């Protein structure tokens, strides 16, 4: 029951909404929690145990940490001497660190067990066979619990925040359980922070027309992206990447472009449905996209694409490493010499290894991380050089032409990245890149091979118009116009005509029904 499935949109969502609305505000969280678990059950009944186990583990570890801190505070209040206070705090910090480490091992262990075990055993067996060991390890097939890549990260962020004393641990199990299992976000995020959404999820909300219209708008807009653009592109993307050896240069590049568009329309579209669905209940979830294709650099792109993952890695991987004691020591020793960038290089390496691996267990994902690592570290190191060149030549870095160039450059780099990302294996990725540039010829445009990739003329027209609409809206937003505000200022007839028009487009031009296969949400697979 993906978020774009009729069962979700026309049965589950209205039903859960209606039931939750009928319950007094104080009890609404219980309804949301039960519906969330029913939602989870609809995918795989056994895997609910994994979610419940994670909730228990997170809840208990949080309480233990909190108890340690409470005791430390009490002891600190009793001692007047500043040095003693520091010593008490340091001791408790050590104990808390042990508790945190244990919890992280359990939760990360879960993730590794379900997501990476087969990758590790396969590669280990490969190594074993290289040294011609007679035995090989058995491959365990456990299946992947829905949303495990998302809720484990949420759980970790909660525990680390409690450890960092950003907020006290949660005492009410229900609030934590709902925050970890809320059904609109369980499949694809956004990866929320505890202090961002837990209170609002738990609070219960009264019925507001503004919530309904705004939620409805987001859902319709998201469906447009997913059903009209992403799903219609799917046959082409599958054709190109399933048969990499048969592609001409141009079809590889068109395939990479189309996949980038499909991924964006699919992921940001389903996030629109997610945010819209939550809004129907009066709950505001954080945004996960901020028009990423208007970015001027790779690092800006990652601050605007899958924002919640980038922010998570920044707060819990990048900061942890770059502000660790050792890195600060290094910084002091090498400031000014050529090794000064070492802490940054290490922290970024960890971030991008995690980013690559998070997307899946496969060498192409690791290489995808490495690709962005090189781009972003390079950008950081070359920044002073750029600055000197521009001041030396007297050019402005804010000039329109330079900005357009930067956006175009970033766009091409992103497409190249997605080409690696979508390839079935790392070897295929290199093969595709080589093909894209060596077998490139514009005659491919004339011999009609673009029409043999599963998209007919009509499909191309729909996709092109869809993308034009999508990016026109985004350019207007990028120019600083508040779209939903302008919409609310229209007379009702105009607003409703727009809604009905968009629904009309989805119904007519959507790639759904018996002539089309069902395309699962892409990011739910990561």
């Amino acid at each position, binding site marked *: 029951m993906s978020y774009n499935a009729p069962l979700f949109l026309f049965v589950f969502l209205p039903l859960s909404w209606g039931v939750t609305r009928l319950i007094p505000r104080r009890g609404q969280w219980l309804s949301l929690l039960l519906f969330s678990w029913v939602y989870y059950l609809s995918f795989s009944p056994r895997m609910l145990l994994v979610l419940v186990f994670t909730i228990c583990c997170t809840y208990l570890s949080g309480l233990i940490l909190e108890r340690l801190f409470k005791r430390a505070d009490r002891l600190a209040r009793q001692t007047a001497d500043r040095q003693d206070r520091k010593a008490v705090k340091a001791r408790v910090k050590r104990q808390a660190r042990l508790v945190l480490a244990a919890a992280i091992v359990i939760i990360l262990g879960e993730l590794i067990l379900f997501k990476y075990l087969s990758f590790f055993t396969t590669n280990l067996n490969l190594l074993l066979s290289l040294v011609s060991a007679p035995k090989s390890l058995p491959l365990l097939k456990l299946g992947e619990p829905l949303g495990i890549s998302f809720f484990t990260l949420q759980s970790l962020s909660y525990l680390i925040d409690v450890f*960092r004393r950003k907020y006290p641990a949660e005492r009410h199990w229900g609030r934590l359980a709902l925050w970890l299992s809320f059904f609109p976000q369980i499949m694809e995020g956004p990866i929320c922070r505890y202090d961002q959404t837990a209170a609002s999820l738990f609070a219960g909300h009264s019925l507001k027309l503004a919530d309904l219209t705004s939620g409805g708008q987001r859902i319709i807009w998201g469906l447009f992206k997913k059903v009209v653009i992403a799903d219609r592109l799917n046959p082409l993307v599958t054709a190109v990447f399933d048969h990499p050896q048969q592609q001409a240069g141009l079809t590889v590049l068109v395939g990479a472009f189309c996949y980038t568009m499909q991924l964006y329309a699919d992921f940001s579209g389903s996030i629109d449905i997610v945010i819209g669905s939550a809004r129907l209940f009066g709950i505001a979830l954080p945004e996960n996209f901020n028009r990423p294709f208007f970015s001027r650099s790779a690092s800006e792109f990652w601050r605007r694409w899958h924002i919640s993952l980038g922010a998570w890695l920044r707060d819990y991987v990048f900061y942890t490493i770059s*502000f660790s004691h050792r890195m600060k*020591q290094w910084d002091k020793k090498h400031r000014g010499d050529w090794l000064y960038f070492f802490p940054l290089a290490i922290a970024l390496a960890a971030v991008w290894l995690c980013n690559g691996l998070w997307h899946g267990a496969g060498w192409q994902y690791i290489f995808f991380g490495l690709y962005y690592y090189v781009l972003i570290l390079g950008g950081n190191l070359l920044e002073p050089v750029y600055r000197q060149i521009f001041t030396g030549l007297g050019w402005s870095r804010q000039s329109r032409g330079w900005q357009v160039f930067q956006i175009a450059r970033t766009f091409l780099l992103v497409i190249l990245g997605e080409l690696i990302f979508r390839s079935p294996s790392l070897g295929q990725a290199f093969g595709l890149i080589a093909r894209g540039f060596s077998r490139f010829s514009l005659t491919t445009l004339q011999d009609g091979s673009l029409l043999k990739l599963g998209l007919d003329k009509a499909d191309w027209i729909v996709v092109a118009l869809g993308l034009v609409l999508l990016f026109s809206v985004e350019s207007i937003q990028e120019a600083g116009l508040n779209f939903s505000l302008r919409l609310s200022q229209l007379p009702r007839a105009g607003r409703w005509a727009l809604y009905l028009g968009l629904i009309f487009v989805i119904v007519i031009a959507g790639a759904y029904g018996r002539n089309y296969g069902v395309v699962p949400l892409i990011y739910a697979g990561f």
Partner: protein
Amino acid sequence: MDEIITILTDVQPGEDYSHLEGLVDKRILDSLSIISLVSELEDHFDIDIAPVDIVPANFNSAAAIWQLVQKLQDDA
């Protein structure tokens, strides 16, 4: 406050930090200089700056940094 400005100038020279706002938002301080800045501040004022405190709001101006330092000194 003056100490902060000295440290800032030391870490990332070439700007007048006394009235400058939006140090992080305008990317005057990048990832590299923040690392140096944090370790300098910790040494100089004998404080621990936790990752929780590393948010743009705390580093956007010399005044904001000074407030952060004072808060951490009070906590210790």
